[in-house]
């Protein structure tokens, strides 16, 4: 007489919702592992770079008053490099440190810290945004990269500036590196910084020198700077994507 359904309507509904949810999750996970799909997704980054650069032009990052400086400038990523060459330099207070500037330049440079501190400098209080989402504000002093590039006399055909670092992030034998194009390289706030909050740059924040590229996220502003190379392409350097994190799936633009 009674025709009890195999499943109640509520059970069916629950099953459908749970099934659809699980299906979505499995689908997204499997798509996330397909290189071709990820390449399609990165169209978003290309659009970000084109549109955001078009909208912003040469505009400057906001500079803050002294009262806005964060009590502690949070250090992230490498905070205490253990590579032999870095430890040796650190042991004698970076006195034999030389920043090399080479590649597509007419006048390659090797500069000690005293020479760099004697160069025309710029001071700026800016906000540092980590790709993880947090922000801190710090006061930087350093030499505009434009001045160093002009001194080294960049050759025609140059397109990118590559920064090589001392730290071995990920402890895999590779070295941290990053790259920007000439637009960002010649931006007035792009500098080789030697001091933070009126003190010589400390080890957690990139001693003796780090880059400040104020319109980029933190990972695009390398610490523990060893060498600057002007190139026409970064395709042959390490993973070929233009930076340590880029080789690990992050976008080269790094502006949002």
């Amino acid at each position, binding site marked *: 007489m009674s025709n009890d359904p195999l499943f109640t309507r509520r059970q069916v509904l629950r099953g459908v919702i749970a099934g659809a*949810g699980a299906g*979505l*999750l499995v689908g*997204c*996970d499997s798509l*996330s*592992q397909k290189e071709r799909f*990820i390449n*399609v*997704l*990165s*169209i*978003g*980054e290309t*659009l*970000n770079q084109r549109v*955001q*650069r078009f*909208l*912003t032009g040469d*505009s*400057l*990052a*906001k500079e*803050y008053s002294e009262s*806005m400086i*964060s009590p502690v400038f*949070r250090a992230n990523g490498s905070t205490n490099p253990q590579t032999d060459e870095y430890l040796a330099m650190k042991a004698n207070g970076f006195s034999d440190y030389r920043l090399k500037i080479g590649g597509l330049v007419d006048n390659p440079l090797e500069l000690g810290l005293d020479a760099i501190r004697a160069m025309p400098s710029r001071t700026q209080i800016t*906000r540092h*945004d*980590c*790709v*993880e*989402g*947090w*922000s*801190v*504000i710090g006061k930087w002093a350093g030499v505009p990269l434009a001045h160093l590039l002009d001194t080294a006399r960049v050759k025609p055909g140059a397109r990118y500036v590559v920064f090589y670092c001392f730290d071995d992030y990920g402890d895999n034998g590779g070295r941290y590196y990053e790259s920007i194009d000439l637009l960002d390289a010649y931006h007035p706030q792009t500098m080789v910084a030697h001091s933070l909050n009126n003190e010589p740059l400390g080890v957690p924040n990139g001693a003796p020198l780090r880059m400040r590229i*104020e*319109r*980029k*996220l933190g990972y695009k502003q390398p610490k523990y700077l060893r060498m600057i190379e002007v190139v026409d392409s970064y395709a042959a350097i390490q993973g070929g994507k233009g930076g340590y*994190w880029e080789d*690990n*799936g*992050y*976008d080269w633009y790094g*502006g*949002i």
Partner: protein
Amino acid sequence: MSSVLIESPSDTAAPYQWRTILRHRWPLRLMHWINLLAMLAMIGSGLQIYNAHPALYWAEASHFDTPIFSTDAMQRDNGEIHGVTQIGSMNMDTTGVLGASRNSVGALESRGFPSWATIPSWRDLATGRRWHFFFAWVWVLNGALYIGWSLLTKHLNRDLAMKRRDWRAIPRSIGDHLKFRHPVGDAAARYNPLQKLAYLGVIFVLTPLIVLTGLSMSPQMDTVLGGWLDFVGGRQAARSIHFMMMALFVAFAVIHVLMVFYAGPINEMRSMITGGMRIRYPRGTAGQSAAASESSVSSEENNHE
């Protein structure tokens, strides 16, 4: 009118008749589903991005000791971790969902939002960002098309805009919702005033806010968005507002789906897939109605038995 609300399935002389009308035109239906897809992708990947630093602040920079909201893992004396969600000065144990949840092999791990809520399910900020920015573009372009289409076809003006009679009908509409009273006739083919306000709020308040606060997390865009950033209280405040808008979008979607079930899930789903919607008219009034004759794809009369 109220007599039509009394219905009995065995009543052979039902005091109403059914018509199928074209409730939503195809561009709107298409844009609706693209919107849903993009939003799901953005919420999942957005929670992945949030998980990279599962705390929100209210200022220009992060005051790490005083977040306004955080979902962290804490360690007990016996070494076990548990999830703690903090809102202002309030702390709640949310182990299993927020702060600490089980990974694919069943072990508790430190995680802002659980793996079932993030894209991808494992911790992968780089991939989450790719998803987020791609679907942000899909969502924004789809939204721009929707606004353009709505202006062009007068959908916005005719169907969504609050008219004087809508404002006056708000108290009655609240009563209808509370008493589970379904509209009949032409009213069933229109948005009710509460529905209009919800849609207008999503389109003209939540959407601009979530787009602008999203953009103002970009150090590049902030070089031209300084005034806006000052207005909302700084970059970290913008990040917090972005998150809150997401929560409001989720709340809207939950209520939206509940309303679909309340109004009749099969009929409502069909109206957003094929466009056809069956509407009950008090007997003798169908056909006279402007809305029904204007957009009718097929008209039928039966007693629904």
